[in-house]
């Protein structure tokens, strides 16, 4: 069936079969392959994109359900070759290793910060409960999201090429134990 929708600001008109999943439409029809398929049970979030500004798992949206709506993918975030602030934060904080979960993680973050611009660490972790990562242990991803939130608006530059100490994020409700040991031993706390 003929379908009209907007992808990354571009109006599109395509003939698709009803069962074509939005993630496959984006990857195979639009050639936007940043969103990845990581599972088949709507669990992993590697396919996360924005649909009318809301984060969705594009593997569980039929393309036909997106008719007349606006889809934003990771490719559509960066403007004029500058990284989006969330992308920049991920880079600065080393919030990606193999990169497979990353576009989905970034889009989920954009969606999260749109709804909650100043999340606590707990809210970040819960906000990303639908995005699985095997490489990072989530530590630097959480730092990246908090950094992006703290940066607030603009600042799209990728930064100086160096980053500050990647200290641990304060554990939630952790027993009240102060850090001890000389600063040169403990990498932040």
């Amino acid at each position, binding site marked *: 069936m003929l379908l009209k929708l907007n992808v990354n600001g571009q109006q599109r008109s395509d003939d698709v079969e009803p*069962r074509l999943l939005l993630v496959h439409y984006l990857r195979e029809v639009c050639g936007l392959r940043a969103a990845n398929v990581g599972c088949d049970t709507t669990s992993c979030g590697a396919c996360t994109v924005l649909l009318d500004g809301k984060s969705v798992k594009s593997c*569980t949206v039929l393309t036909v359900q997106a008719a007349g709506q606006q889809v934003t993918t990771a490719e559509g975030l960066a403007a004029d070759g500058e990284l989006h602030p969330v992308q920049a934060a991920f880079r600065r904080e080393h919030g990606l290793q193999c990169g497979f979960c990353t576009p989905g993680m970034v889009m989920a973050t954009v969606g999260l910060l749109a709804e909650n611009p100043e999340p606590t660490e707990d809210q970040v972790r819960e906000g990303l*409960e639908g995005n699985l990562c095997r490489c990072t242990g989530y530590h630097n991803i959480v730092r990246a999201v908090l950094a992006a939130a703290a940066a607030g608006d603009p600042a799209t530059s990728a930064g100086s090429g160096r980053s500050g100490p990647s200290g641990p994020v304060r554990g939630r409700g952790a027993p009240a134990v102060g850090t001890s040991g000389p600063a040169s031993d403990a990498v932040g706390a």
Partner: protein
Amino acid sequence: MIPAPFDYLPAESAAHAVELLARHGDDAKLLAGGHSLLPMMKLRLAAPALLIDVGSLAELAGVRADGGELVIGAATCHADLAADELTRADAPLLAHAAAQVGDPQIRHRGTIGGSLAHADPAADLPMALVALGGSVEVLGPGGSRRETADDFFTGFFETSLEPDELLTAVRVPRNPGAGWGYQKFVRRANDWAIVAAAATGGRIALANMGPVPLRAHAAERALAAGANAAQAAALAADGTSPGEDMHADRGYRQHLARVLTRRALVQQD
């Protein structure tokens, strides 16, 4: 990973959806957010020949007050319900339950109508509706009917919905300021409940303790007779025969039901 082929028709109205259902019978399923149906279709556990999309029908969305009840459109997504001011004020247990479903992406798509019609006994909203003593509005070829939550869930992933019926709205009593408790036991934040308990206004509902969301009748009676939270909760698993899986055997599930019920009752006060 990919559903079997199917046809797709967007419904123009609720009445139109019912008309299409009547015409196509068992071959057709309704599609709203698709986050109960599509995962099943992707695993080929369901393969309807026709999907009737009611997800964008304005008449099925939104929350309004109607006297002593809130009326929630069946196609209201969980995120919207969780954030809805009216619901948070007058039926906070329901808003809270909606906020527990899955993860943010799922909550942007999944709808209360879809969740209730799917009738997963481990899910949040069916249990919440039973705890609140709510009801559903159903539209069929013969007109509309109401059914209480207690009657609506008839079996494991089964409701009283006929193949030609559409769940149009959910009704819950308005009880601003009423205490409520909600305890969901999971291993990971976006899991289905291993066991869950919800308590409000003398009613206690349990998730994943049987084929449907259950009322903990013995515990409710004890409460009504003046028992405290611990005493009432000790009876929470009475009469239940929960299933077993890799997370919990029968005895452990029943134990969790008692613990969670007590905690929900304490939360309520």
